[in-house]
């Protein structure tokens, strides 16, 4: 069932538009983002390969089941409690960012809290489902939306107003010293594989090498699209002025003979479901990790407490984080995330070798 692995990776690639990746890359376009992207590709693919092949030795088991019988219970609790924050904050940033986008472009008169309540209701319903159901839901969402998003990307590539000269101009800054921020942002596109630590429960048999080859190709195409298409539309000097480069790019596309002329609404419509499932997948992982820290089956009270904690954090996030602040925080979050990700992969790799040896 290798396609499940690709779904997880593809989901992160699609959702990076919401989580400020194009924004960060374009900010550093003259200061090493191009080199950063080029460096991020091997890093991303290598981490993909390392974690997937390691966890592959435990077919149909998630991390909690693998480490369930460990003698060092406290170590396990600390480990789980530590890493679950990455998934939780990833979901939180996506959620707060997308609520801001919806509020800005779809319905500015509706209070943000109302949008948040609708989203949270759906998310809480999904994250409590068994892992396989979450995966089926993800499959359906991707099945419905990916072809249409691919169509929008195709329209962007064939647009008369897409300036290849501007893109090449940014390309000529390839030899600048790469900045850590751009590397961290670019690797986010590849980090969908980390969800495997829970979703490995569904993966039977070994992952074949062509999976990683597909990740490599998809990653190159995805990074090129995220980074360069907004520059082609808004210029090498002007693209950084946009708060949400990709949404402004979608607004710059015109489908003259479609029922809706403005692509932006189609784009946001597709992204509503993609964002929803992305947050759900991240929080499902986080939720399962917390559950894994308890020895016995989780009680209803604890379950409710966790959900209330999630809801409280997102309400606080929506109230206190405005777009500019969120953008600033995300830049540093990306770096922390990259560090933790490497740590996670390396610890797990070493632990497995000792365990099997």
């Amino acid at each position: 069932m290798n396609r499940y692995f690709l779904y997880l990776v593809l989901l992160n690639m699609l959702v990076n538009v919401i989580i400020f990746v194009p924004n960060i890359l374009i900010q550093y376009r003259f200061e090493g983002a191009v080199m950063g992207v080029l460096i991020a590709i091997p890093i991303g693919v290598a981490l993909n390969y390392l974690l997937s092949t390691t966890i592959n030795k435990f077919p149909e088991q998630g991390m909690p089941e693998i480490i369930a019988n460990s003698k060092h219970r406290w170590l396990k609790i600390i480990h789980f409690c530590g890493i679950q924050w990455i998934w939780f904050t990833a979901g939180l940033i996506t959620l707060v960012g997308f609520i801001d986008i919806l509020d800005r472009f779809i319905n500015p008169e509706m209070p943000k809290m109302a949008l948040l309540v609708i989203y949270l209701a759906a998310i809480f319903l999904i994250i409590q489902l068994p892992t396989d159901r979450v995966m089926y839901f993800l499959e359906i969402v991707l099945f419905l939306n990916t072809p249409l998003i691919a169509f929008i990307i195709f329209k962007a590539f064939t647009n008369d107003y897409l300036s290849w000269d501007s893109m090449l101009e940014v390309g000529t800054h390839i030899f600048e010293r790469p900045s850590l921020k751009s590397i961290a942002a670019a690797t986010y596109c590849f980090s969908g594989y980390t969800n495997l630590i829970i979703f490995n429960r569904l993966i039977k048999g070994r992952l074949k090498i062509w999976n990683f080859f597909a990740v490599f190709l998809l990653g190159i195409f995805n990074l090129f699209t995220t980074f360069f298409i907004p520059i082609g539309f808004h210029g090498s000097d002007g693209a950084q002025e946009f708060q949400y480069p990709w949404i402004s790019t979608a607004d710059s596309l015109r489908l003259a003979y479609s029922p809706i002329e403005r692509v932006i609404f189609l784009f946001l419509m597709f992204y509503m479901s993609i964002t929803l499932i992305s947050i759900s997948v991240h929080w499902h992982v986080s939720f399962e990790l917390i559950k894994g820290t308890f020895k016995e089956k989780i009680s209803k009270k604890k379950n409710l407490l966790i959900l209330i904690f999630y809801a409280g954090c997102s309400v606080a996030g929506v109230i206190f984080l405005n777009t500019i602040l969120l953008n600033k925080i995300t830049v540093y979050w990306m770096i922390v995330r990259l560090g933790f990700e490497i740590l996670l992969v390396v610890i797990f790799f070493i632990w497995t070798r000792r365990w099997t040896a």
Partner: protein
Amino acid sequence: MKSINNWKSLVLALLSVMLLNGCGFKDIDKRFFVVSIGVDTAKNSSKKYLVSLKFAVPSSSKNNPTEFMIVSEKADTMSEAVRIIKTKVDKEIDFSHAKVIVFGDEVANQKGNSGINYWFIRRRDIQSIAWVAIGKPSALEVLKVQPKSEYIPSNALFLALGRDGSETPYTISEYLFDFKYRLSERGLDPLLPIIKAEKEIFEINTVGLYNKSQMKLVLNPEETKILNFLRNREEKSANRVTKGKTVIIIDTQKVKTKYKIYTPRGKAPYIKVLVSIEGILEESTRRVPNEKLSDYEKIAEKSINKEIEKLLVKIQKANLDPIGFGLRYRSRHFNNDDWEEWKRIYPTIKFKVKSKVQIEDTGLIE
């Protein structure tokens, strides 16, 4: 039992949405849709701009002619003008259908408009795919024009600028996002079509070239056509060729332009422009035998070479760059000061134009 409890809590959560959603959404009959926006300079006033909004007035039956309403206000900034206009109309102003933005001729000619240019981009509800144009004699006059063929207010402008209706090489249309792109990109300058308002029709066949802040040069219709050839945007046109007393017209089917910038060491830099045109002979004042077509092709090539070079030099003299030679230079050079280099090179650069005309067909008559 457990699943029922889950559903109960879900229903409760969804019901709470009702409480939150107080008085957000306004019905469509309480909104007033702006179809086009005009900006002029204010006359006899201390204020800077005269902002006019053209509203579509919905009519109860299909048979009524199209109705619209124009509300104007003098102000120093766009935002203030719109806020004051809000007090003059009874409904909420909605910009989501504003598809044409017209700057008056005087506004285009003056400096210091970046505030209003960016206002359009900054507002989330104005489409990036709105068309931008210059209005002559003023933006307000352009908004007032109501062609008889029009069913919906401003629709004639939408069709003409959007090329959904008539397609002509004399019109260069410009989207708002592209205008902004050209305003900020070094090595590529903005250009806007000029709409001349006459009694019941528009005339859109000239183009105004901007530097980064104001309009500097106006091209005549023939030059506009050639600029369109150079931008590879329009292929259908009619070209006139004269040989002795005979005049023939070539209806072009395919026009392709390529250019490359050469900077040989120790020699003067030059730009090589290659234009290939394929067309049909559409009209001639005398009989043209098929064997002689190649002669006409050569003459056509010569005259097109000359016209293109003349236009390029004219644009160069004004120190403008609507085609993007500067951007091309920047994109092909890896050094960081390529823009400064180009600014030195451009005023003296030579153009070498080479065109290739092919008459493929002579219509139904030989």
